[in-house]
């Protein structure tokens, strides 16, 4: 029988302060980037604007395309290589271009095409993809995406609250919230374009990260029933260790699938795969280092009825320090604010 990480007894929770520092630092970095470099890099689906994917017969300099577009009056369009030297995407999403689309979304694309035909000849290139979105549609989509995120979290919370004790539910949802925030920071730091597919990736992550936490908590719930004497701290550690082989294997396989997407599924789906791959790491990390300490902390703040069970929050050295340090990190981690 091939075994990995069998019968381990790591004290995972011991490292929670390091972990908290790490993710808080990462989120701060994301926040700083947000403050310095300004807003999120929304795709045209959200801002309105025009995206065109062009395929030229031969390699072409991006500068030539830019000057052609400038002459056509489509200024400030972002031109990017897409895979090869002869393929480009053109994004016109500044306010002026978007405003023009209020009277009809197709106008900018038409102008770009006319200019390119004049410059390079009609048969030298092909428009393989056009997306043009009016400003009103974009605003609506942005609202819908936000509603979807909130609703998905809410629905998960309600389900977990029904299936588990509320403490577990809150810890699971907060840790999921943490994952989303860290992933957003990642998206911001890498300047990944937030498109509908990326939003879909974030939402999938919401489900996936919830899964991971549920599996550990499910084990915690079981161990708590079996063993009413050990402190929660030990039960948590034991549960994490017991589910460790599963976590490692599952993540290895999901990651393998995601990497296959990243490297083989082509350029269009790549942002989705990058976000997903990062999200899987974060989900693994958070179910151990965020969800579990959170559960411990909630247990400490609102101890369970003595008659109900004897698993006291912590009979460990860290007991006295826990609330103090918690207070220190609370302000830096927005998702904790909700638990007060």
């Amino acid at each position: 029988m091939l075994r990995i990480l069998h019968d381990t007894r790591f004290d995972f929770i011991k490292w929670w302060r390091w972990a908290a520092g790490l993710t808080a630092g990462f989120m701060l970095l994301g926040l700083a980037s947000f403050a310095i470099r300004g807003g999120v890099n929304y795709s045209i689906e959200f801002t309105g604007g025009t995206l065109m994917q062009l395929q030229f017969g031969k390699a072409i300099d991006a500068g030539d395309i830019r000057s052609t577009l400038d002459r056509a009056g489509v200024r400030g369009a972002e031109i990017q290589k897409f895979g090869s030297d002869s393929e480009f995407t053109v994004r016109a999403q500044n306010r002026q271009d978007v405003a023009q689309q209020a009277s009809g979304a197709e106008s900018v694309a038409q102008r770009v095409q006319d200019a390119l035909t004049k410059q390079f000849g009609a048969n030298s290139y092909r428009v393989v993809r056009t997306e043009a979105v009016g400003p009103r549609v974009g605003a609506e989509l942005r609202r819908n995406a936000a509603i979807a995120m909130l609703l998905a979290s809410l629905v998960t919370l309600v389900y977990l609250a029904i299936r588990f004790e509320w403490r577990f539910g809150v810890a699971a949802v907060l840790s999921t919230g943490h994952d989303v925030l860290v992933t957003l920071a990642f998206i911001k730091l890498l300047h990944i374009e937030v498109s509908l597919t990326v939003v879909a990736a974030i939402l999938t992550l919401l489900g996936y990260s919830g899964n991971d936490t549920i599996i550990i908590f499910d084990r915690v719930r079981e161990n708590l029933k079996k063993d009413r004497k050990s402190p929660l701290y030990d039960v948590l550690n034991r549960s994490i260790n017991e589910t460790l082989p599963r976590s490692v294997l599952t993540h290895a396989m999901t990651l393998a699938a995601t990497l296959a997407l990243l490297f083989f599924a082509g350029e269009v789906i790549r942002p989705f795969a990058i976000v997903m791959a990062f999200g899987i790491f974060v989900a693994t990390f958070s179910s151990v280092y965020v969800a579990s300490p959170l559960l411990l902390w909630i247990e400490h703040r609102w101890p369970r009825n003595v008659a109900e069970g004897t698993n006291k929050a912590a009979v460990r050295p860290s007991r006295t320090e826990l609330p103090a340090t918690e207070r220190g990190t609370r302000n830096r981690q927005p998702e904790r604010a909700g638990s007060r």
Partner: protein
Amino acid sequence: MSNLKYRVLLIIALLAASAWSLFPRKVIERVKRGDRYVFDTVTRVPLKRGLDLQGGMHLALEIDDSKGTVPDRSEALDRAIKVVRTRIDEFGVAEPVVQKSGDSQIIVELPGIDDPQRAMAVVQKSAFLEFQITDKTQALEKVLPRFDAIVKESGLAGKVPSVLGDTAKADKGLQGLLSSGKDSTRKDSTAKNDSTKKDSLALTAGGAFSKLIQQGQFPGEYFVADRDVTTLQNYLDLPGIQAALPPGKVLRWGSDTVSLGATPYRPIYMVDSRPIITGESLIGAKPNQVPIEGTVVEFTLSNEGGRRFRAETAKHIRDYMAIVLDQRVMGRPPVIQSAIGTRGQITMGQGRSLQDAQDLALVLRAGALPVPLKVAEVRNIGASLGADSIRNGVRALVIAVGLVVLILIVYYRFSGVLAVLALGLYVVYTMAMLAYFNAVLTLPGLAGFVLSVGIAVDANVLIFERIREELERGKTVRTAIDEGFRHAMTAIVDTSVTTILTAAVLYQYGTGPVQGFAVTLIAGITASLFTAIFVVRTFYLLWLSRSRGAQTLSI
């Protein structure tokens, strides 16, 4: 034992049903023949592919409020949908989608379209056809001094911002008027540049209006130099001018440019505002090419319409009749020689191809749009990009499945093989479900499928790990398997339900491709629940019944 028999039967029955729903059948779709994409019947797996995978156009149209308010939007939109649908059907697209979205949008999906500009023009054209008699009472000449005065007045009072505002508005109106082709849009922008320079001059000079226009070749026809078109339109948009128009008359621009000497002119016509007949009486229209006029659209009127047309034209012998499409006079108005019956023709003008005539005939047959529509959103994916996406997506899927299979077999040996078999069933079941519910497979959907393979085996891993633990505690193989499934169940159900809930939210609030993703995810999780819990369990039971008293389990 009989329990086991039913389990196996259920799995086989589902497999048969899946095979049936996935069985290749004849579908009409766009395929590559040589270098061109054409519609053809092909035999293939009946999985519906989204626009991003097969190429095509997605349009969201909404009511254009800039051209007047619409009293009953919802009802108008319903009628517009009917017209758009008729036009699309005539345009010849396999499996088009025309549907209402919310109460202000029409979604049009045209798979496999390779000329998006043309399709857009066909969908969007209002196609309101009127036959109007040109004025022969010198009505415009009579009001010209009044017009000049109004223009002068507004020019004197002319604050710069209001003039600018007017320019912007006129520009929009013009875009509609001049959208006859790519050239005219370009001309329009140059004309605009010129006229903005001239604006200040014209406004201060006397007779600003009348000096821009000159008499045409017959009563009611006037010419405006191309460079003055925007300026004149600005004047015409002045409320004062609108009010001062002779009663019962309207001004309509011509569709084509006329060259007099070296200067290009655009004709403008004063016509009776009451049409003698409209496109509603039209029952047929077809394109044709005739020697003198060039490309024309020949039309047929209904009997009742024909009668009215004959009576009206009989009253107007020797008059000129403007054929006005979407408030633009098509070609030069012909003179009425004698009463015309049920047949007539519209001259398309210079440089128009037979295809333009075909499209005009098409929209005339389908009828006029009850409201002007504008494009709120357009997505157009080339067929080649779609084919690339499919190839890449399938490659990623194969590699992902290969990696997962490798890990499972290396790590779990015999049990891993069982899991792989179950995974095979999982792929078939999921695809069958998508085909059965007619769900649309999109590129994100394909990604969701690849991802769900990873998530699907999670259930297997949970169960196997649990069985290992139970075996370690010294339980017999049979008990360990039972316990393993029982204990892993709660976690599997909880994780599946939360993921399905998230996917459902995604479906509700997503659009197009993202909805495809959500559907695939839901189908995948449902299938994985069944295969991981039921199918693998059955495999174990089969194995146990074959090798009675097995002491060890390869896991």
